[in-house]
């Protein structure tokens, strides 16, 4: 099922951040939202994944507005991994991942079936978390914790997955680990993934589609090869940068030198 963003305005309360955005999100691909701090990309992501209500316009999934879905039905199609999520101190990884099956349970006495337990085990193995299954989530290291949350999100078995800054607060090795896992989920299961990401070269390397924002507006969108150029870096981030081709992946790579002078 495809996501369509139609004439969407985002913001909190009376204050609009983005207005009248209409743009496609390619199915079965990884889309990265990029832009400087405060450009509205996180607000846009939260609106598209129904966390905050839109100020206008709508997001349609399979021709139907997200806000017309039953919340449990929608949770079988669209998963969310929020930025820096929290859990009760006593919650174990396996319990957390089992919560990912909640949208499939009835409203009363929701307990996991054998099928649910199999899916939970699969999610734990996909994320290399099986050995930590009985540990408390909040007692894990940053990288392990992030994998536990991803395990919960994939146990939800949705076609579409939103990730809000999945690599922030992680060291470079764990950043690679999480992004490789994201790529694996996309390649092996054809999941549509939409994420906000700060590290530009990671965006260019792992995403198929980039959306670059400034002051609530989308200035550039397209493949990394189309979008990743000096003018974009100057317009979006105000930096003067050199671009080279990544010798291993062939994707564009930027080396920032200084803040661009205003012309």
């Amino acid at each position, binding site marked *: 099922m495809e996501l369509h963003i139609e004439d969407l305005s985002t913001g*909190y*309360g009376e204050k609009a951040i983005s207005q009248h955005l209409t743009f496609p999100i390619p199915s079965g691909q990884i889309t990265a939202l990029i832009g400087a701090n405060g450009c509205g990309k996180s607000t846009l992501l*939260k609106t598209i*994944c*129904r*966390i905050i*209500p839109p100020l206008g316009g709508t997001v349609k999934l399979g021709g139907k507005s997200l806000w017309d879905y039953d*919340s*449990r*039905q*929608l*949770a*079988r199609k*669209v*998963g*969310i*991994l*929020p930025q820096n*999520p*929290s*859990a*009760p*101190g*006593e*919650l*174990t990884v396996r*319990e957390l991942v089992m*919560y*990912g099956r*909640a*949208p499939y*349970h009835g*409203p*009363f*006495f*929701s*307990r996991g079936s054998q099928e649910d337990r199999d899916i939970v085990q699969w999610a734990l193995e996909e994320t*290399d978390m099986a*050995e*930590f299954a*009985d*540990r*408390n989530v909040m*007692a*894990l*290291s940053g990288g*392990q914790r992030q994998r536990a949350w991803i395990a919960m*999100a994939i146990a*939800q078995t949705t076609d579409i997955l*939103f990730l*809000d800054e999945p690599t922030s607060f992680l060291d470079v090795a764990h950043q690679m680990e999480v992004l490789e896992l994201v790529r694996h989920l996309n390649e092996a299961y054809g999941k549509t993934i939409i994420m906000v990401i700060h590290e530009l070269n990671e965006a260019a390397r792992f995403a198929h589609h980039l959306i670059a924002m400034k002051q609530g507006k989308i200035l550039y969108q397209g493949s990394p090869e189309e979008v990743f150029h000096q003018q974009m870096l100057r317009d979006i981030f105000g930096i003067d940068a050199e671009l080279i081709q990544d010798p291993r992946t062939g994707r564009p790579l930027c080396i920032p030198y200084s803040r661009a002078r205003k012309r």
Partner: protein
Amino acid sequence: MANPLQKTTGRHKGKGRFLLSFAFLILATVLMFYVHLRTGFAHLSDRELWQVLLGGGTEAQRLTVFDFRMVRSLLAVLVGGGLAMSGALFQTISRNELASPSLLGVNAGAGLFVMLLIYARDTSAPSPFWQLPLAAVAGAALAALLIYRLAYRKGRTLSPYRLVLTGIALTAGIHALQLLLVVRLDPQKFHIVNTWIIGSLSGNTWIHAAALAPVVLLLGLLLWSRSMDLNLLSLADETAIGLGLPINRARFLYLMAGVVLAASCVAIGGNIGFVGLICPHIARRLAGADFFRLLPFTAVLGSLLVLAADWVGRVIIAPDEMLLGIVISILGAPYFLYILVRTRK
């Protein structure tokens, strides 16, 4: 992958360990119930007590056991269980393990209404039994709704922090009103108010038990059947929304369920708020975070605590009686300090 320097505080919480500790808890509660039943002003030996329980004994003994003692023991079970469950709800909804029903103005609101009622009523005529509990429930519900309304902002999810802060502010305001009222009460009325505010289970009848039992049992069962909703509420808002929980509606409904539970229990047992603070906290350590285990565990623990505290209050300065609320506070205050010290680390 595991960092060997990382301190692993994660413990293994198997099903077996949970069932064992739950079985032990139930056994302890049943024993405490018996001990509680055995204690009172009139002396009854174990033999006599069993005779009465099995349908024998004299008329006076039957009256003592069933109409005085068993009512009180059952009320201790219900009040303890209800307050502990509502504490677990409040701690989850406010995402604060130091929260309790009193945080939402339940105790303050109930106290104010009870005080107004006693201030206004004519002491020369006997008052109907339902008057005081009803006033307490009404005051508690009104205070909780007012706090919810003030903390809620349109178009946003309710912030637990705003809820806590609004609760503290409004509770302080209600306490000021109570102080104003207290100085206008005559000594006899003051005594009634004071006994209620400190908390006591004495002087209740079967009608009180019959009114409280359905509230605690039915709401408890309903909440237990919806334990996955409560699990999702204990995660961050965004995660709960992603897992299909309609967050604002759920938070409001479970908050109100907690208020009704706490208000009904407080109406019968007085201000024994510590039960709702301590029991969920201990229960989480022993039963884990999953409400399917946590809720029954914390309820039985609450029953055990109130049974034990009420028993201690009756024997410690016998033949006088120490008010239940004082015993609970003496037990609860050190544990509260212990939590504070622990959470600072």
